């Protein structure tokens, strides 16, 4: 029997099949790598192995000591080397592990921490208003007081944001509890309703323009 396809066509078919295989592989790798869990960003190495567990859980330092702008600004604030050195000029003042910190203070060159909670650039999140409305730190950041190395516990995908924006009441804490890692949202329905009454309408909370501009 004569060959069904002539050699150039066979080459074309082979190339096509290879292209499909490569395309499937590329798509798979793309999605796999883009998933937060596999992107290596959930709990990256930091320039200094800073332990929130030690500072928050063991020593009981308030979040706002270091993240000082969290109530006033959209950005929570990352402490300057100077802030760290308020204690560490006395404690572990010559620990080799803190050398980057001392160097930063000495040279004025900032430490470059690796961002763990990274939102896309078209999303505008404001820490201040979330705290003011009773969304506690632990709600999004998890039990930071138990994390030797900071890690991300929430997906930070839009679906996850909307989960709360559509039905915020179960996620709200009393104002005095927002910085308390161990606190729970009140179970009492009337307290919940009272906390939720300070919010804007669900329509407003789910408007595109609330987070995108």
């Amino acid at each position, binding site marked *: 029997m004569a060959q069904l396809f002539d050699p150039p066509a066979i080459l074309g078919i082979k190339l096509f099949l*290879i292209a499909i295989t*490569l395309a499937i*592989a*590329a798509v798979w*790798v*793309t999605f796999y*790598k*883009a998933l937060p869990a596999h*992107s*290596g*960003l959930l709990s*990256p190495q930091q320039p200094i192995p800073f332990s929130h567990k030690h500072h928050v859980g063991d020593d009981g330092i308030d979040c706002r000591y270091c993240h000082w*702008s969290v109530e*006033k*600004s*959209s*950005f929570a*604030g*990352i*402490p*300057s*080397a*100077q*802030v760290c050195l308020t204690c560490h000029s006395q404690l572990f003042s010559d620990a080799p592990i803190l050398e980057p910190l001392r160097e*930063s*203070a000495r*040279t*004025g*060159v*900032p*430490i*470059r*921490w*690796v*961002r763990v909670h*990274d939102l*896309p*650039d*078209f999303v*505008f999140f*404001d820490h*201040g*208003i979330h705290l*003011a*409305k009773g969304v506690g730190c632990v709600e999004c950041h998890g039990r930071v007081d138990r994390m030797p190395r900071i890690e991300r516990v929430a997906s930070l995908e839009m679906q996850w944001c909307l989960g709360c924006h559509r039905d915020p009441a179960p996620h709200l804490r009393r104002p005095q509890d927002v910085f308390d890692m161990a606190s729970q949202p009140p179970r009492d329905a009337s307290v919940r309703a009272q906390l939720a009454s*300070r919010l*804007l*309408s669900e*329509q*407003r909370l789910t*408007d*595109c*323009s*609330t987070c*995108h*501009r």
Partner: protein
Amino acid sequence: MPPVTLTRRNFLKLGAAAAALASGACSRPREPIVPYAHQPEGELPGVPRFYATAACFVGAAEGMLVESNTGRPTKVEGNTAHPGSLGATSVHGQASVLGLWDPERSKAPRRRGLPATRGALERDIADALARFRDSGGEGLRLLVRDASSPTLLRQLDRLVKRFPRVRVHRWDPLHRDRGREGARLAFGRPLEPLYRLEEAGAILSLDSRFLDDHPYRLNYARQFARARTPRDGQMCRLYALESAPSLVGAMADHRFAMSVPAIEGWLSGKNATYDTIFKDLRQNRGVILAGEALSPQAHALVHRLNAQLGAPVSYIEPPREETQPLADLVEAMRKGAVGLLVILEGNPAYDAPLDLDFGAALAQVPLSVHLSLYEDETSARCTWHVPSTHFMEHWSDARAFDGTAAIVQPLIAPLYDGVSPHELLLLLTGEGKGGYDLVRETWRDTDWDGALRTGVIQDSAFPASPVTPRVSPGSIPSQQQGWQVRFVADEALLDGRFANNAWLQELPRADSKLTWDNAALLSPASAKELGVANGDLVDIAIGERRLRAPAWVTPAQADASVTLPLGYGRSRAGAIGNGVGFDANPLRTRAEPWNAGGARVTKAPGRHEFATTQNHARMEGRDLARHVDLTHMDSFRKERPRNSLYPGWPYDGYRWAMSIDLNACIGCNACTIACQAENNIPTVGKDQVIAGREMHWIRVDRYYEDHRTLFQPVPCMHCENAPCEYVCPVEASVHDSEGLNVQVYNRCVGTRFCSQNCPYKVRRFNFFDHTPKDESLKAQMNPEVTVRMRGVMEKCTYCVQRITRARIEAEKQGRRISDGEVITACQAACPTNAIMFGDLSDEKSEINRAKRSPLQYDLLAELNTRPRTSYAARIVNRNPELKDG
């Protein structure tokens, strides 16, 4: 390029490599968080801070508050306390922040074109000064553009003390010498008139351009708008005689396009129009303003006429200037009498009068030092070029037109190795201080902290002097008749100093709507006579001097005259400004800086392609930009929104809305640039503007109707029934609960259906990736606004980031946003408060007050889009006794 030969093997190799690289590029980039090493006091990342400073663009200071986002100046706002701003900003003020971040700014000193150190400069100057020591500074010359800074004046005094024979010269291509000379003729002293336009019942502008490029333009614009607000059926009437299209003429109730000799002739001669206008001026507390193109004698005559009218004008006396003209300097340079020339800013090799031939004379100076932001035409001819610091990088001081002083304070350390004019002068005066100490010392008796905080030094305005003009200032010299050539500062580039500023290059000029070009402006009758149309080249010759330029026809131009905007045709402005437009300076002489007669204009072969943003100037029967006669305001009719079977959408919160008062709008374009700065709007370049792809979110439409120019700013209308929304296949264009029509960039797939269906054509599409690639330009971006990529539709958001900020602050305090708390970028910049913005659900809000005006109407109301943005019609106040104009 050699022909591509690709074997099968190499193809597969490349393909595999590309796939591998592509898959590796998929993970998100690791973004660092960079905290401060030493936290500045009071700094709150994410919350901008504002610093009061000031800058001179048209000969006097404009006060401003510059927004700083964690140390980066990103946006300019006006300073309400400053008389040269009153809260408003000019296009130049807005665009100056782009100038700061321009990556093409000069970065290091150069000696004869080669990089050199500042130490070498200091040695060179010290050596030269050592030679001058015995002669008392003979041969040491200074050339300054602007000598109004009190600290600079103090330094010059000191320099004269050290070198008694030093000479300081001044050259500003946009000088106002004729007005000063006129005041000298009238009063014996170079006084400056300070008009109180607010009190005027009628204004006669003789080519005065008081809204365009007058040093007090923002203040006059605000006063003018107030005078034009009808009270008890009365409002200020404006007559304009003008030789070149200007905002003043566009706003006039009676406009006469006349050449400069014709205006001067009209002023001295008696005719019916003159009598009628002067009768009105006498009866209604009129005032006359004269422009720089008029002769000193005409200025003196105007002072006398104003005195006769009892016009609302006072005269202030600026401190005596000890500077000498440029011509004396050039003469000395030619004779070889100049050993060291220090040029503080300015670009005389480009813009000095042609008959002086400054560039050639400069070559004969053994040591010349040029301080400037860019390495420009003058730098190329000087021994030394020294990069100047931007005004946001140095300490200085500046005076507003009325004399009110302000401290120029830096917001950022110098980006490059530049020095301020004061610091360069220190090399000559031999003081061992910094710019800060110098300025501080000038104002040692004032409340320094208060001056920095408020942006003005209290009670520093020049006192008004009671004067009466002399009776006979001399007759007005007759000017050459025939074709007139009128030189004007380009409204965006001025004398060319903003040539490398893309925002200003792409800003549609008020009258012509041209971008990226200047043009020889001709009247329709003259164009017909010459047989030229838009884009045809014309030859303009005055004696031996000639110039070829593309023509642009505008009804605002006087017959038999041609207007040539300055500031173009730069050869060393930078990649953006080089070779754009034509240079009009080769026709400009010392004796005739603003108007030259006896010209020959002929049609030349060839055409030039212009980039204009509005190709049609008629409304074609649609009532878009409306105007109504003051006496017939009751007859103003507007469409009522059509009835609907459906109930209106219930809004339980804020309902944002805007109102634009066409009676106040002077068409200055400040809103367009302010919006551009606030909302990270890119420039697209001339070819893309020709393709109709400009990106401005708010444009100012211009119509010629009934012999007048009408301006109409058009942002997104935020329609209740928005036509863009129901054609979007991915719901990227949606309404929010406060009535904003929002564009969701991350949803947009770029079908452009919305833009197609928008009757107002306010949607803009990113055909290409226009995001800045340069780190320096990235720093200018507003961090509160998304930077859009290619393939995304965008448009006015009512400054949703400002609304959000106000809402967050209000919600934190558990209150509603109060009226006036949200000010959009366009509204803040507007010199005449033409733009109102606010919440319709607040009955007492300003926006509701504006919307209740009987002159309110909706644009294209017949489409039933129910726009949130509405307009108030312009009011025309014609003199019933005057038929023409």
